C-alpha cells in the first residue's frame, strides 16, 4: 500500500508540541508558539548531533560505571567491593540466578541495547535509508519505554545504603561506580528524548 501523503514540512507548516497549534513555518530561528510560547521547531533542534553527543557521553561514562565498584558491603570484618558484573556473578554463584538475571538485564543488557538501538537509529536516519522504517519506529518506542527501568541498580544501591546500617555488623556504602552508572542512564534517557523519531521518515521516497 502506498501512502504518498505530504509532510507538514513540505506544506510549510509547523506544529506546536505542547498545545498542538499549527503555525506557518517562517523558517526563522528561535520560533515560538504564539499561543503557549513553547519553542517551535520543524524537527527537534539539532536532534542528530544532540543525540549523538549525549550517546557518546553516556557510552564514555558507561566504562567507569562498569569498571569501578558500585557498592561496598561490609559485614563483620569482611569488606566486599562489587562492580556491576561481579555483583551479578556473585548473585549467580550464591544461588540467586533469578535475581542475577534481573540485575544483568537491567544493568547490562538494557543500557547496551539502548546504545545499539540509538546508534542504529542515528546511523540509519543519517543516511535516510528507507530500510525497515516501521520497525525502527517501534524500536524507538521500545527504547523510550525501557529507559525508565535501567535505573534499577541505582535504586538497589540507594535502598540498601539507606536500609542496611547496622554499624560494624553490616553496612552498605555506595561507591563512585554507581554515580557513573546513574549518569549513563540519565544521559541515554536524554539521548533518546532528544532523538526526533520523525527523522526516521525523512528523505523517503515512499511510505512503505
Amino acid at each position, binding site marked *: 500500500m502506498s501512502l504518498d501523503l*505530504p509532510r507538514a514540512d513540505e506544506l510549510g507548516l509547523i506544529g506546536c508540541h505542547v498545545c498542538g497549534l499549527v503555525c506557518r513555518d*517562517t523558517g526563522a530561528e528561535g520560533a515560538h508558539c504564539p499561543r503557549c510560547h513553547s519553542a517551535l521547531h520543524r524537527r527537534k533542534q*539539532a536532534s542528530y*548531533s544532540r543525540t549523538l553527543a549525549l550517546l557518546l*557521553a553516556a557510552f*564514555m561514562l558507561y*566504562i567507569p560505571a562498569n569498571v569501578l565498584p558500585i557498592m561496598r558491603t561490609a559485614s563483620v570484618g*569482611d569488606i566486599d567491593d562489587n562492580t556491576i558484573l561481579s555483583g551479578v556473578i556473585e548473585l549467580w554463584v550464591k544461588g540467586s540466578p533469578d535475581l542475577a538475571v534481573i540485575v544483568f538485564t537491567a544493568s547490562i543488557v538494557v543500557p547496551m541495547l539502548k546504545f545499539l538501538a540509538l546508534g542504529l537509529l542515528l546511523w540509519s536516519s543519517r543516511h535516510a535509508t528507507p530500510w525497515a522504517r516501521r520497525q525502527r519506529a517501534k524500536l524507538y518506542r521500545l527504547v523510550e519505554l525501557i529507559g525508565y527501568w535501567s535505573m534499577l541498580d541505582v535504586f538497589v544501591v540507594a535502598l540498601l545504603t539507606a536500609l542496611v546500617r547496622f554499624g560494624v555488623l553490616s553496612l552498605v556504602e555506595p561507591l563512585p561506580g554507581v554515580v557513573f552508572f546513574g549518569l549513563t542512564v540519565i544521559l541515554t534517557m536524554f539521548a533518546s528524548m532528544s532523538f526526533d523519531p520523525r527523522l526516521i521518515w525523512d528523505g523517503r521516497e515512499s511510505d512503505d
Partner: protein
Amino acid sequence: MTDQQVPSDLPEPVVRKPRINASFVWLIPVLAALVGLSLVINAWMQAGPTITISFQSAEGLDPGKTPVKYKNVVIGRVTAVTLAKDRSHVTAKVSLEKSAEGFATADTRFWVVRPRIGLGGVSGIDTLLSGAFIGADVGESKESRDEFTGLEEPPAVTHGAPGKTFKLHTDDLGSLDIGSPVYYRRIQVGRVVTYQLDKDGKGVSLQIFVDGPNDEFVSKSTRFWNASGVDVSIGADGVKLNTQSLATVLAGGVAFGAPLGPHDETPAEQGAEFRLFGEQATAMAPPDGEPRYIRMRFDQSLRGLKVDAPVEFLGVPFGRVVSINLDFDEKTQTFPVIVGAVVYPQRLGRAHDKLVALAKARGDDAQLSQMMGRLIEHGLRAQARSGNLLTGQLYIALDFVPKAPKVPYDPMVKPLEIPTVPGSFDKLQEQLAEIVDKIQKIPFDSIGQNANATLAELNRTLKKVNDDVLPEFKTTLQGAQQTLGNANNALSADSPLQQNLGGTVQEMQRTVRSLRVLTDYLGAHPDALLRGRRADAPPERNAPPAPTSTQEGSKP
C-alpha cells in the same frame, strides 16, 4: 501540491532569540571524556610497582581483598594468588600504591598477619574479624626489587625502631624462641630476634633487640642469662627452683643485669657480643677463665655421680664433671671408673693468683699441672662424696687427705690426672659389706632345713596327739566329770555322808567339852592324876555329865 491544501490564515510563530547555542551539547561528551580521562590518569598515577611475594601457604590471602599494610596504613593490595609450578609455595601478586614505591626495595620484608596464639601471647586478634593482611617493613636499601620471599613469622623488630641489637652465644637454645622477651629487672625491654646454630654446630647464636632508651643499660660488662621457664635442678646442692616471671615460665626469656661489684658501665655498642649463661648464679659469678680438663680414676662404684655434678676444691665450686667412663684394668681384673671434669682455676680467686705467683717465683711455669703437682705432693686427693643422702647424689671433692699414701705424679701427662681416695661413704659401705659378708656366712640353708625337719616332726607329733591322745583325754574328762558329780552328790546336804559328818562333829564337840572339864578338874585337883578321882567330890552342877563324857570321850 503545497499551496492548495494549506489554509492561509495560519498564525505566524513568535520569534525570540535562542538562548543556548545548540552546539553546547558537545560539552557533555567532552566533559565525560575528561572525567574518564582523569580516572584513567588517576589510576595510572596511583598505580605503583607490582611485586610478587612467595609464601609457604596462601592461608588468609584473598586476591583482590587482602591489603598490604605498613604501620596499619594500606599501601597495596593482593591482586592474585597462584601456586608455584613445583607446588612448594604460593606466589602472591601485590600491586603497591604509587606512594609505596619505596617498599619495592631489596631489604623490605613481608609477612602475613594472622591471629597468632602462642605461649608468648596473642597477636593479630583484629585480623580474626577483618581477615589477614600482609604486613610490611621497609629497610634502607635503595636497590629496587620486585620479588620477595615472605616471612612465616612476623619479624620481632621493625626497621628503624630505637634500640640496639646484641648478639648472644650459648650452648643450647633452651626454651627460647623468636620473640621471647628480654628482661631487665623483670621489666621487658626487648626480645629475641633470630637464632641460628653456629657454623661449627657447637653452640647457638641469638640476636636480641633491646628497645631504646633501655638499651643503654646494656653495658660492656653486662651479663645475660637464660630466664626460661622454671629451672628445677636436683643436684648435689639440693632442689633449686627459679623463675623470672610467669610469662617466661611459659615462653622462655632472657634476662640481663650488671654484675655485682665495680664494673665497666660504658654502654655496649650495637651488635656487641655476649655470652648467654644458663642461670643467673653462673652469669653473675666472676668470670671463670680458661677451663681445664682433669681426669680421675676411682676404683669403687660411683653410683649417683652424674655428668654436671660439681667438683669442689675445699668446698669452693671449682668445676663440673663432664664424663664418666668405665675402664678395665687387666692387672687387677677390675673395672675402675674414669671421671673427666672441667675445672676453672680462676674460680679459686686470690688463692689461684697467689699460687700462680708462687709458681712463677719458683721458676715453674704457671701451668695447672705444675701447681697441682705440688698440691698433690701435700696430699691433695679427689674423693667422691655424697652430697645429698636423700637422693644419693655424689660430687667430687678435691681435698687434702692427711695421711694419704704417696702416689707417683707425672705433670707431663695429658690430661692431668688427680689421684683419688675412697670416700668416707665408701668406707662405710665397705664396713657394711663386711657385715653383710658375715651375715652371708651364717648357714641359713641348713638352719632352715633343720628347722623345717623339726617343724615336720612337730607336725607329726601334733597329729598323733590329735588322733590318739585327744579321744583319751576326752574320756578322762568325762570320767572326771562323773567323779565330780558323785562328789557333788556325796556333799549334798541330805547325803548320809553329810549326816554322818554332822554327827561326828557333834560327838567331837562333846569330846572336847569333856576334855575341857577334865583339864579343869585336873587343874583344880592335880593330885587326881595320882590318886584318882575323889569319891567325895563336892557336888557340882556340871559334874555329873562331865565324868561320863570324859569317860566316853576318852574311850575311843
